[in-house]
């Protein structure tokens, strides 16, 4: 097991290096001059040239690359080329927002998806099943930001139950914090729930039709016990896998949803910095998202081996 985990960690580190290098090179081939964008289209050329020099943009690309890695290994992500703010600070301010939304969306998604999947599977062909299936279909088909806009207009605008934009730090109180992330989390959680629910339903249907369930019923085990103790337990294995891997979906969903709710999480930081060619911030944000993805995949792989001992990786 330790050898397996070690291999996976090395693999993860390689992926992160690859991502960091691709982002570094990719950004520098993008059109546009960060110095010009920082100072505005109408800033004097002399000011732009001076800023380019200051930012090290006139150095050869390999010099910039080596500097980048030396700083990165020291956890020094540099300063924003546009605002001059420390990138560490930008990321540490933005990441909790995205992670808060993603975490709540994860909880909401599972709370909705698992019961809905079970109800749908155990009532196959009935109204409940159709309702849940149509709901899941819509959830998968429509993007998170669309739900976000609907929620902002209806719940925030018309009903005025929750704020339409902004984020409250948890330090200002749990309730204000929850209020500020509830709508974005629901918006991100709906598509996530839809995917997990569909997996739950199909997996449970498969288990309910399995031979060991026939045997259980023949032995007179009460249907409820058979469902929860036998079928559901087995059906959860693929659901856990999908739920884990789809955490990536929550993060990408947060990117667009943050724009809808005016929250400056990783998504909004990423979009703004890409548009402004703010290399240092883009590099850091993408690296962080990539690291989270890699880490989640690693965790899922490891958990999976515990859930299903038949799986061997060597």
């Amino acid at each position, binding site marked *: 097991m330790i050898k397996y985990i070690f291999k996976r960690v090395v693999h993860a580190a390689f992926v992160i290096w690859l991502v960091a290098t691709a982002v570094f090179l990719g950004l520098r081939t993008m059109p*546009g001059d960060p110095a010009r964008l920082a100072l505005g289209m109408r800033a004097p*050329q002399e000011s732009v040239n001076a*800023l380019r020099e200051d930012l090290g943009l006139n150095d050869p690309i390999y010099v910039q690359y080596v500097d980048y890695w030396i700083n990165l290994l020291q956890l020094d992500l540099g300063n924003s080329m546009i605002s001059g703010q420390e990138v560490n600070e930008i990321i540490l301010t933005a990441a909790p927002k995205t992670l808060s939304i993603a975490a709540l969306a994860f909880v909401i998604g599972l709370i909705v998806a698992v019961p809905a999947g079970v109800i749908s599977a155990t009532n196959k062909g009935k109204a409940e099943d159709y309702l849940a299936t149509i709901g899941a279909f819509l959830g998968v088909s429509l993007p998170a930001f669309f739900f976000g806009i609907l929620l902002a207009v209806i719940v925030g605008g018309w009903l005025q139950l929750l*704020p339409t934009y902004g984020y409250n730090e948890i330090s200002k109180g749990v309730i204000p914090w929850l209020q500020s992330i509830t709508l974005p989390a629901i918006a991100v959680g709906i598509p996530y729930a839809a995917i997990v629910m569909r997996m739950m339903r199909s997996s449970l249907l498969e288990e309910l039709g399995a031979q060991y369930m026939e045997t259980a019923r023949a032995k007179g085990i009460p249907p409820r016990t058979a469902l929860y103790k036998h079928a559901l337990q087995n059906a959860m294995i693929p659901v856990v896998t999908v739920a884990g891997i789809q955490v990536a979906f929550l993060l990408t969903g947060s990117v667009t949803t943050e724009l809808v709710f005016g929250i400056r999480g990783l998504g909004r930081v990423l979009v703004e910095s890409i548009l402004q060619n703010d290399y240092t911030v883009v590099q850091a944000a993408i690296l962080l998202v990539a690291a989270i993805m890699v880490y989640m995949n690693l965790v899922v792989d490891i958990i999976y081996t515990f859930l299903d001992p038949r799986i061997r990786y060597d």
Partner: protein
Amino acid sequence: MLFSPTVEANTSGNYIILRYFLNTMAPSDGVDPEKLSGPKIDRRTATKLFAAAGMAGFAGCTGGDDTETEGNGSGSTGGNGDGDGTSTSPSSERYGGEITAIWDMPEMDDFDPISASHGNEWAHLVNFTDAPLEINENNEITGLMATDWEVRDDGRTWEIQLRDDITFHNGEPLLAEHFEYTVDRAQNHQESVISGSANLIKPAMEDGIRAPDDTTLIVEFKDVVAYAPVLFIPQRRILTPVHPPTMEDIGRSEYRLTGPGTGPFQVVEHTPGEEIVFERYDNYYLTDDDGNQLPYLDGYTIDLLTEDSVQVSAMRSGDADLLSHAPRQSVSSLESTNGIQIKSSVLSDWRPLEWNGLREPWGPLYDPDVVTYPEGEVPYPTTADQGMSKSQVPQLPKGEFPDGLHDNALKFRKGLGKLISQERLIDQGMFGLGKPAYGPLNPEYWPKRPTEEKPQTQDFDPERGRELIRESGRDGQTIELITRQTELRLSRQVRKQINEEANGVVECELRQVTSGTLSREVSDNLTFPMWLGGSSHTWDAIFNMWNHYNPPDIAGWNQSGLNDEQVREWMVEQSTITDRDERADLLNQIEDRVLKTMAHKYLFHGEDAWAHSNRLKGIRQIPGTRHLRTVYLDE
């Protein structure tokens, strides 16, 4: 004395403002210069002068009758704001409350004024930092930090008396010497975006700016600058004082986030890219008409949001009280929402279809009498990959233009311009917000020349347009318009109109690019084909022309490639003319010349629309500015 301060009262007699008067009192004017020297002036004189002077010539707008009034010359007040005329609450009961304002920008990190490069920042800057003079609701220049000023040496030297009760937000007193440091940075700091204007003043290190004592400031210009007072307002950011010890102590990166400034509100918390919390500055020096200290609000929070839908939702839900710029497409729906008001005013800016005069089929835009080229040589790049740095432009060889090249290019530009209807564009591309433009000078602003008196090169006449394009011999071409996402709707309308009206003589294609690509093609390499360029709202007509019509080597915003020595001479000349009528004539002449060269197809003058909740009262409506110092809550 060419310029003189004066004090005048409003109709109620208790509203004292300081005004400046530019020299229009040549003997033929029938105005006795002596009348301008003292601290009082009769309204007849004011009317006569402001007919030609002041920012927009709103002569005597604040005067109520012909009665001679006088003030004590001791300084200005904050005024009352134009308000909505609906509240009758005494000013002493206006204190308290906080509001949330949404500012339409991703970041506002330029509380170090030298690098504030965005109009939205200037609009807010007046709440954070002051300057010797300011623009009031009637578009006149009045005293703010200055109690008095005198102009000498034919307008080259300004001696300004400052109030002695001004402090920075850190409690330190403002001293005249702080302006030396401020102007030096504006002139010489490598990230200064205002060095062009700041350098009209003699170098600070060579006594261009002096402080004989704590409250006397002497500003010496290199030459006469007819629009000098405009350089002394907060929005121009040249004389918005920074506190030298604090700047040295905390550094520019911190200063630009927090200040301190000298305005009515101070920054208490700044989360970059998200929000800025402002608090009332208790030691602010201005009072209202009743002598109550300003500002009224306890504070406000700015949320930095650029997404239109979020902005509108926030206003509708009541989560925000003020929206700095209402999205065009949402103005009417916001207006019809209960509890929300829209304020709007036409700006002095202009937006044109700007073509690349260095490329076919639009170019050349050079005046053949001045800049000419060897026969047979096409003196400009003809494909997008032949990029040219602006600094190369004046180094092009001189000689003769190839026969007909200049005429044909002019015909093509004229023809193309005639395919576009300004009215239709505003209606369909701008949701009706804007005023048709037929030249760079908006007739609603000084020098206020009616459209009918301008050369008629900008009219919509598709039939003649097609004819001209055919005559140019450049018909059948496909021309490209580049745009960024924020201008997409407008650009689509331009393309649509050209293609609909051209009937095949020319075809327009649209290419959407990122801001990075746009700035590279437009500002750096001059490889763009056509784009929607334009100027910002400014406080003197010349600012709408200087950086666009001077030759590309000295005009940072001249993307069309216009290089007309006559225009250049006139622009330099007008800066030194202190007679407003004479100066207006020359500005109009420049506009005539530019219109004849068809450097742009002028589309519209912008409309400054913003939204606020009904509970906000006391708003001073000044185009391009969002004053909060007289705002109060009427719950």
